[in-house]
């Protein structure tokens, strides 16, 4: 190959591939709006809050960002909304061990950010992040444990090393509670601890609440 051939190979090849990229970009721009819910004024305002506080300076979203804090793509699907809002407003009041500082968002900014995160959780990301293998293989030993699983308590709590860190570790929770008090707490946390950020589980029946608290009391 002569130098001239190599030069033409570079110039015309690059132009060709760049044109292919432009065509694919146009196609992507047409298809993308159908892969996510409609962007409302709140979602757009929430996205601006996301940028204003440089959230990506610690978090990732759709897997891109700073790898210092959890991914936010589907956080709204994993954690209760009330909890998230309270946490964003003052993280260490909710979880004293949180690494996140208080950034000074106001109520409206927090609501808009919630709308934005709810929007991102509904984006079609080609099934990312993958569902953990362990979650599919898990079997419940008791009715209470089954409720613990299907109410997704592990989103915020750890039992035996597995689960989230937004709420307290429940591995040895049993001896710290009385049955009746725990049932009442699960139904409406604020009635027992006013500062609690945990959402209530009043939609469960009395029997289900009892089963759940029985299971929790066995943890020690």
């Amino acid at each position, binding site marked *: 190959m002569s130098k001239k051939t*190599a*030069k033409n190979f570079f110039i015309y090849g690059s132009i060709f591939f760049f044109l292919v990229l432009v065509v694919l970009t146009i196609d992507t721009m047409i298809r993308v709006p159908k892969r996510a819910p409609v962007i409302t004024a709140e979602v757009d305002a929430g996205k*601006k809050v996301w*940028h204003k506080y440089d959230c990506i*300076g610690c978090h990732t979203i759709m897997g891109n960002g700073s790898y210092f804090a959890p991914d936010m793509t589907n956080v709204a699907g994993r954690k209760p909304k009330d909890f998230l809002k309270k946490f964003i407003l003052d993280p260490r009041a909710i979880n004293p061990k949180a690494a996140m500082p208080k950034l000074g968002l106001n109520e409206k900014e927090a609501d808009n950010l919630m709308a934005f995160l709810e929007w991102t959780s509904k984006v079609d990301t080609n099934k990312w992040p993958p569902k953990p293998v362990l979650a599919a293989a898990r079997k419940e030993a008791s009715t209470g444990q089954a409720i613990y699983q299907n109410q997704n308590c592990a989103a915020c709590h*750890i039992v035996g090393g597995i689960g989230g860190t937004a709420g307290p570790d429940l591995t040895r929770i049993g001896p710290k509670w009385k049955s009746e008090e725990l049932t009442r707490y699960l139904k409406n946390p604020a009635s027992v601890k006013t500062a609690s950020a945990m959402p209530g589980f009043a939609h469960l029946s009395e029997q289900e609440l009892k089963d759940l608290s029985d299971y929790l009391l066995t943890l020690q």
Partner: protein
Amino acid sequence: MGYESHKIANNFFTSAILLFLIQIVVGIIAALQFVWPDFFILNFNTIRTLHINALVVWLLLGFMGASYYVIVEESETELWSIPLARFQFWATILTVGLVVIGYIIMGFYPQANITVFGTLLLNEGREYIEAPRWADILIVVSVLLFLLNTTMTAWKTRKFTDVQGVLIAGNLFLALMYLPGVFYTKNMIMDQFWWWWVIHLWVEGAWELIAAAFLAFSLHKLLGADRTMLAKWMYIEVGLVMFTGILGLGHHYYWIGTPAYWLWIGGIFSALEPVPLVLMVWDSFRTTKYATKPVENRVGLFYTISHVVFNFVGAGLWGVFHTLPQINKYTHGTQITTAHGHIAFYGVYALLVLAMIYIALPTLRGVKQFNQSRGYVAFWWMTISMIFITFSLTGAGLVQSYLERVMGLDYVTVKSAYNHYFWIFRAVFGVGFLVGVLIFVKDFFVAGKEPLAKAS
């Protein structure tokens, strides 16, 4: 020294390596914040913004310095306008200074990042391109002035060499690819889509063109290799870089909400991205073997070859490991990416700029020989430390991918409990890297100005 214009290159190099030093110091603070989040008066996001912005800016300053040097050497004439180049230098430094002050203010008072004329005043909250709109405009003006000056210098002599052509094309492509990141997009999917145009088409497109032009220039200057031969291989290399790299962009479009056909396009083209990098390794080793003159600037050649090798290791190997969607599904957004980012930026671009500094050094200092031993010491401190930083982060990434994505453990649990020692290793080797940088900085300021060591 020969040309008055080389003072401009020297200014750019000086500012680049001072920012390099700052980048590493804030990097160590960031590494410690993984263990103690409240370690420093500024939060992690500010420190991390400074770390990655210092990186991008010092590399760009290094490219500009090296481009001014190469264009002048290739054209064998002074720059088209030295006062314009001087103005462009100081205007760039002033802009960078203002942006940094803005980041720090925002670090202390997040509320200060207010919206003015529809854009955020201090920080746009988009990784790597955090610089606000007013700074974007100034940066574009600076790059345009730089392009004008270098192109007019090449034009002046009507000598158009192949190196000049690819170098100017690379710089022009770099300037154009900054633009897709300047505008606000309502849709987060498209926001990230255009963001990747900037980031990917810079590091795996425009910057690789600049690197290939510098490589051809250096091999000719150091080894007296045949220009036509070098130019031919340069065109083949940059051709393959563009053929694989442009659509290789697809490996960033797997999981951000873009259509599923990107899984195919990204997977196939990005798997081929290491090919030109292997070719560069082969090309530079072969050229070195058949050198037609004795090598005087051995440390310059050493850094050049190391850059080529770590271009392949960092960008090629550490990239291709996790580029297929079947693997990337588990590793995306984990410390595997951080590991790749560190070794790739060091190997491809940090070593490239350092190599260009060593190649230009004798000319800039007006000497034929200089004491080269410190350059090697600095290299080994930096490189061994970076290899261990990469291993620490790769370990952390494998643990994280397995526990978080396969087992379903929580992010925070994995980070604070299982990866604790990886963070500590990374910080320790960060200090080792800093030692290497300090030796390099000292070398830059004293090499060529001290009496030559007798036995060297």
